[in-house]
């Protein structure tokens, strides 16, 4: 009995750091943030409850609407591509194992993963120049096939959000590809072998065996991609907002940052945070709800 009591004590003592952290960094902040959403709070004076005023302001706020639309547009391009392309690459990687073996295959994976590591500041800055009109490498390469002078990241241009989404796919490709690759290795070989006897081609193999069998991994990648698309602050700040302080191409997170830390409008910014959180949750719930239709689980 004594032993048990001292076990309890040690247990609570050991988890103390996390309990303090959970209260200080999660529970209390989440409650504060919810309350602030219904207040006028500009830091210098204490928060004042103003009911639904923030929501009314939000609905009339053109800049918010632009950022809201941009965030959805960005996510709608980024998520599907980030789900499909890494899968295709992972499949190609598993084919290439016949030509590129052992250590080399590991290095190939490592090279693909590499862009995920450096800060968006570095990646963003480099891509701004690579995508520059005329002198950018991408325009130079397209130029081999004909004259090209596309301002991919031009202010307010139609191509800016798709370009951003594609750069994000480039950065995240190796990570998702690696997760898929692990999933591919768990597909039983017997399935492929019997398919081979039936003489199916590469596409049929991919369509009828790989895609259904890998679907639990696909589901994981969908969820991860949704959450990173809605929280893509670093990229949008570096590649768009840091260059010119205009709101036409902002992401919700950047707008939230501006409202909170430049204009010190904490109440309104908290509401934006909850709105973007809600969008993310709704999309995630829809995906969860639809998973029965397409995710194939092993019995």
């Amino acid at each position, binding site marked *: 009995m004594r032993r048990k009591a001292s076990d309890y004590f040690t247990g609570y003592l050991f*988890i103390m*750091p996390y309990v303090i952290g959970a209260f200080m960094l999660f529970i209390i902040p989440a409650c504060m943030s919810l309350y602030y959403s219904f207040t006028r709070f500009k830091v210098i004076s204490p928060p004042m409850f103003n009911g639904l005023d923030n929501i009314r302001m939000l609905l009339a706020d053109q800049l918010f609407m632009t950022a809201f639309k941009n965030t959805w547009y960005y996510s709608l391009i980024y998520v599907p591509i980030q789900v499909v392309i890494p899968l295709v690459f992972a499949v190609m990687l598993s084919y290439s194992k016949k*030509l590129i073996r052992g250590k080399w295959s590991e290095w190939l994976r*490592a090279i*693909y993963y590499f862009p995920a*590591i450096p*800060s968006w500041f570095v990646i963003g800055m480099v891509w701004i120049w690579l995508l520059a009109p005329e002198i950018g490498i991408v325009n130079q390469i397209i130029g081999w096939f004909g004259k090209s002078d596309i301002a991919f990241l031009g202010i307010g241009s139609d191509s800016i959000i798709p370009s951003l989404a594609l750069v994000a796919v480039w950065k995240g490709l190796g990570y998702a590809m690696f997760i898929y690759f692990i999933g591919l290795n768990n597909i039983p070989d017997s399935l492929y072998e019997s398919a081979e006897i039936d003489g199916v081609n590469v596409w049929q193999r991919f369509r009828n065996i790989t895609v259904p069998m890998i679907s639990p991994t696909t589901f994981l990648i969908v969820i991860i991609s949704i959450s*990173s698309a*809605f929280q893509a602050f670093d990229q949008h700040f570096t590649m768009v907002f840091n260059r010119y302080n205009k709101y036409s191409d902002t992401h919700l997170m950047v707008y939230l940052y501006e409202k909170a830390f430049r204009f010190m409008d904490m109440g309104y910014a908290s509401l934006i945070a909850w709105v973007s959180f809600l969008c993310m949750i709704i999309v995630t719930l829809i995906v969860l709800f639809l998973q029965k239709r397409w995710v194939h689980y092993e019995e």
Partner: protein
Amino acid sequence: MASIAANKRNGTKIGVSTIIFTIILLLGAISMLLPFVWMILASLKTNGEFLNAFKWLPAAPQWENYTRLLFPEKGHPFMLYFFNSVKVTGLAMIGTVLSCSLVAFALARISFPGKNIVFGFAVISIFLPSQVTMIPQFLIFKELGWLGTHYPLIIPAFLASAFGIILLRQFYRTIPKEMDEAAKVDGAGWFTIYSRIHLPLMISPLITLAILTFQEKWAEILYPMIFIGKNSDLWTMVLKIRDLSTGQYNSRPELEMAGNVLLVLPVIILFITAQPYFVKSIATSGVKG
């Protein structure tokens, strides 16, 4: 014989599609590295060469871009920012590893009431995005007088992260229970069991966690920007490079690229030396975006 077996394991024999796929993959790998090669070359160009980017190679490498950056005529030497980054990242890594290993140990090995609630909360809290907690955290740190210091970037790491706890807990659970029992018979307390028996067995997952923390902290932009703000003595490298791109060197992109190279260099070195651990860390980081 071995190659036949290998072919069989991989499905089809080497066909045209395999060759095409391999070529596409290698081209893709080049596209992954090309921007970094370009960055290094660009950092050695003169301003004129940079803006006329049709030539990829600089006529003569401008090493003075680096000396200019490292030893500026006025302002802080670049080393200061490097040390700030090392300090913040290093302490955050130590803090995360220490606190997560202790908390995860308690949750995996000691039985006490309420531990499932704590673990359940950790799992749920992963889904709560940072934008919701960011503003109140800022206000809390403001009340504590921590704004404009490194504390907000370091102290939270010592308070364990949900992700680290979940990651390490599964590894603790693979260690046989008999080891704890045997140690207890010898009169060891829980802390001795944790530090002498479990930690040495956990080296590999702990390094994985340290690497993931490094990756997160070294590249971080938002939190240093909010919490350190204008106090330029305490800026991390990322903040300094951001200043280069918007401040006095606005028209000197080649210096900015030199700064980027300096920021990426430690990452490349770590990446090459710890490559197997990176691979392992991706494999175990399924939940981390």
